[in-house]
């Protein structure tokens, strides 16, 4: 049965094939990405930053991006590091190579992401999210874990009119459907 094991398993994405567009918002499932849930103490942030070639943000609700890597501050000792490059981008290895005490857990498949873009993007998200998404309160680069309807999401503003919504795999159908509902109402 050697031929059985020689073929690599194919990847099936959550939300595969879905694409929605309302008048002022488009909702697009993001491409696969490498993701690491990174936990570390304050004294080890510098070493981890240089290992990841990315300044880990230490201010609440902020993110940092370098090349294809983005680090999102989620808590005082917690970051979600996303590598948007093709294939495995080596985030786990970089964390291990830092030589400092940390917890790096691969969550690439735990989350999936949805891009919400357009003039009504904030309104569509506000159909289920209680955050103030005005540019004053939630500027470009702002990020946080929050609630969207009945599911938890991580929200990152990548532009004045674009957001990345990170959501656990099994909640992505719900998140997508609620975003689509919100988008229908976002022209107002």
């Amino acid at each position, binding site marked *: *049965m*050697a031929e*059985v*094991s*020689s*073929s*690599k*398993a*194919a*990847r*099936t*994405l*959550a939300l595969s094939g879905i694409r929605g567009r309302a008048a002022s918002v488009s909702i697009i499932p993001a491409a*696969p990405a490498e993701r690491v*849930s990174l*936990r570390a103490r304050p004294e080890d942030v510098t070493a981890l930053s240089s290992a990841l070639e990315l300044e880990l943000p230490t201010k609440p609700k902020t993110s940092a991006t370098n090349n294809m890597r983005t680090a999102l501050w989620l808590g005082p*000792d917690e970051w979600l590091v996303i590598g948007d490059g093709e294939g495995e981008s080596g985030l786990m290895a970089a964390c291990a190579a830092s030589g400092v*005490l940390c*917890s*790096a*857990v*691969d*969550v*690439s*498949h*735990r*989350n999936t992401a949805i891009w919400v873009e357009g003039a009504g993007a904030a*309104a569509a998200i*506000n*159909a*289920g*999210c*209680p*955050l*103030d998404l*005005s540019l004053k*309160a939630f500027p470009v680069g702002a990020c946080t874990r929050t609630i969207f*309807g*009945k*599911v938890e999401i991580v929200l990152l503003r990548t532009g004045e009119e674009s957001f990345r919504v990170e959501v*656990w*795999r*099994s*909640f992505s*159908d*719900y998140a997508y*459907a*609620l975003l689509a*509902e*919100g988008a*229908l*109402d976002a022209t*107002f």
Partner: protein
Amino acid sequence: MSGSSHGSTKNLGAFRIKGVGRLTPARTSRFSFDGKSYTAIEGDTVASALLAHGVHLVGRSFKYHRPRGVLSAGPEEPNALLDVARDSARRQPNVRATVQEVFDGAKIASQNRWPSLAFDVGSVNNLLSPFFPAGFYYKTFKWPQEAWEKVYEPIIRRAAGLGVAPKEEDPDRYANRFAHCDVLIAGAGLAGLTAALSAAATGAEVILVDEQPEVGGALHFDTSTTVDGKNGFEWAQETAAKLAAMPNVRILTRTTVFGYYNHGFLGLAERVSDHLNRPGRETPRERLWQVRAKRVVLAAGAIERHMVFPNNDRPGILLASAARTFLNHYGVAVGRNVGVYTAHDSAYEAAFDLKRAGVSIAAIVDCRERPGEAVLAEARALGINVLTGHSVTDTSGRLRIKSMTVARNGNMDIRKMPIDALIVSAGWTPSVHLFSQSRGKLRWDEASQRFLPDIYAQDCVSVGACNGTDEASSLVHEAIAAGGGAASVSAESRFGWSGGMIGAAEGAGPDTRVKAFVDFQHDVTAKDIRLAVREGMHSIEHIKRFTTNGMASDQGKLSNMHGLAIAAEMLDRPIPQVGLTTFRAPYTPVTYGTLVAHSRGELFDPARKTPMHDLEAAEGAEFEDVGNWKRAWYFPKRGENLSSAVNRECRTVRDVAGVFDASTLGKIEVVGPDAAQFLNLLYTNAWDTLKPGKCRYGIMTREDGFVYDDGVVGRLAEDRFHVTTTTGGAPRVLHHMEDYLQTEFPHLKVWLTSTTEQWAVIAVQGPKAREIIQPFVDGLDISREAFPHMSVAECTVMGVPARLFRMSFTGELGFEVNVPADYGSAVWMAIWERAKGMGACLYGTETMHVLRAEKGYIIVGQDTDGTVTPEDAGLGWAVSKKKTDFVGIRGLKRPDLVRDGRKQLVGLLTNRPSDVLEEGAQIVGDPNQPKPMTMLGHVTSAYWSENCGRSIAMALVAGGRSRIGQTLYVPMKDRTIAVEVTDTGFFDKEGGRIHG
């Protein structure tokens, strides 16, 4: 008055006055009321359109079925509650005709009448009314108790209630929006608009809300106010346009601020499309706004009160301001020969406007001796007969008022005056509902006889009529200050809000038996309130509940003050000592659709699906809900039902093998040098002795010593554990662990990460399990010797990184293949293809349950219930005796947890092997003992076991393990089942198969 129709084809109504009002007659729509067709003008409410056609009778009252007409022109309407439909599904009962705008094709019907509005059988209640006093239901339907269920309740339910809810599913969409602002202004009359100008000038984010289709508030009817030298209503529209053009202002009309909650949180209901002739398919019907405002300006205005006098409820009796609104805004006269009964100058203005529009005024009856000089002078100038110091002591007319009886106060001489409408005013009640909802404290202002805002609980300010500010220029100053900025507004008005009377008027005093209505919607009369006081209700809260005054859907907007004054008079106490009932949200009724908003259908609750869900569905799986998860329950083949499919699956797993989706199990990655020490504290077991590459079944107790969760924990490295939890327990177990880590053991160097959804888990169980997965696994020797039971390793499966567990929840040779979730379906498909060829099966949660029960493995939450210790569950071996600390160590030593005779988990075998017990059934020692029997415990799990060829069960039984071998009894409805107590293993007791 013209009294004639406009144009040859469109009859806009005999009471529509040409050249009066703000509607454009060019745009009309058709609607029906109780089957008869009418024409309305765009902008008409159902009330204004019906009144234009002279229709006053629109409903029957709740209790006495008395004919009722439109009373108000706004959301306070208690009478004109109608059933409004677009089609059979888009039908809503209890719609206020004074709020609902006419749309083309509206089918509108009256309620609470049978067989017809004009002839209603239920009105016999009116004749029987001496038998229906306040508190009637409480006193009458007390006994016998059985009669409640069979007789009283069905009859009362049929007779009660106004509208009938639609039976079809609501096809409309409802939207929700969270919003934030610096200043939210409730009410867009003169005060609200001025405050908005002032707030907007500071650059603040402003949301201005008004419940009417256009801004203006009282300027809709009050034509005496000029602002910046313009007609007030025109100024309001211009100001709204100016505000709407500002980027920091959002104006929401047709929107009600229905609730003012904690910390600047407000609920708004926006009626988006109820007024549209043809709403778009994607247009929501209503939109819920959940607004967080840093500051709130309440500019809610005031509500006019009616006069409480005998038979004050006939169709054709309206509030004076309502008559003025219908005239000045909608161009509709409420009658041709109108009487006026008032205790306040503002009704005179209504009479003047009507008179100038050509309506004759029979008389202004004023119960006061001295009205304002200005209005008296104008009345004289217009030739209107004013009777000061007089009262209306009765009215006549069955379906429409025909006359009013007028008497000089304190005099028996009466005069009957024919009229076709009577407009009334007892003065104005400041609308303090939202202020009160915000937990502000009111004070009683003795001089003006009204409750006014006093102590604020939130960052909020009241302006204008709702704050008792009567005079236009001070109102404007107040509003500008409330807005926090500057604005140039100058207003003049001769309209005043204070004065008037509260309580029963002449002829409705304590010495009479007349019906003088205080609360129209609930048919509460002045007499009912006095009766409540006589029967011992001394607090307004008790009086309210006894009489139901103010408890209808209008929440006593008209009736509360009158009821309070009548009660205070009876009690001979000042009003503030009698108290004021609490105003609660919602201010006006809000549809369930709006509150539910998006949360229906697929958005009611997330349906969590595993990566293999679609493949399992294609294989014919039936699914069951486990929390939010959809889990494959069983896989019926053609002709199979649940039990035959499960019997086959159970047999096949033990004979060959089965493939099971275990992806929903909770998974937590515990990482850090202190990981083992942390798990030592959170589980009853010892973890420092577990070597990397091995796994162990663990039990988690809470501090009280009761089983909280269980699962297999694998040690991947010295500092990395892969913890599994029950499917339903995953979130709370992580929360529980985080709690201890963050607050009790923060010194430990360890972190927790949920990996539940990172991994797809494919369990392969059965004698052929190894043979099935062997070819897919790279980089790991999975032979019996190299990879024994309770091993874990990282390897490659089908070229993707995997975690392989050698473990079993079936008692068979078993593996759990963990691969990154997106690869789950491909790996599952390959494994299943191979397994199928070898005679294995797919199995679901039902078979999993049976197989584990055959082995006596527990399910936390089924065989335990939060009062079961590890020892009770027969798992005492999993509690470390060596550890000096773990969560639960002290709780487990509590006297009650170590006493003899506790309920213990045991097996039960029915005497007749084919009898399958019911889970939850009670167990007794002697089935013939008198009731209530002493119950020894209950059945926790019971199944037909195909592998054992008989039924099996587990139960929690007092002193269970000492009863092994005894016969106990399970009394059921139709028979009693004898059972033998056994230990909890039913299959392969030696346990050899698991090591295969």
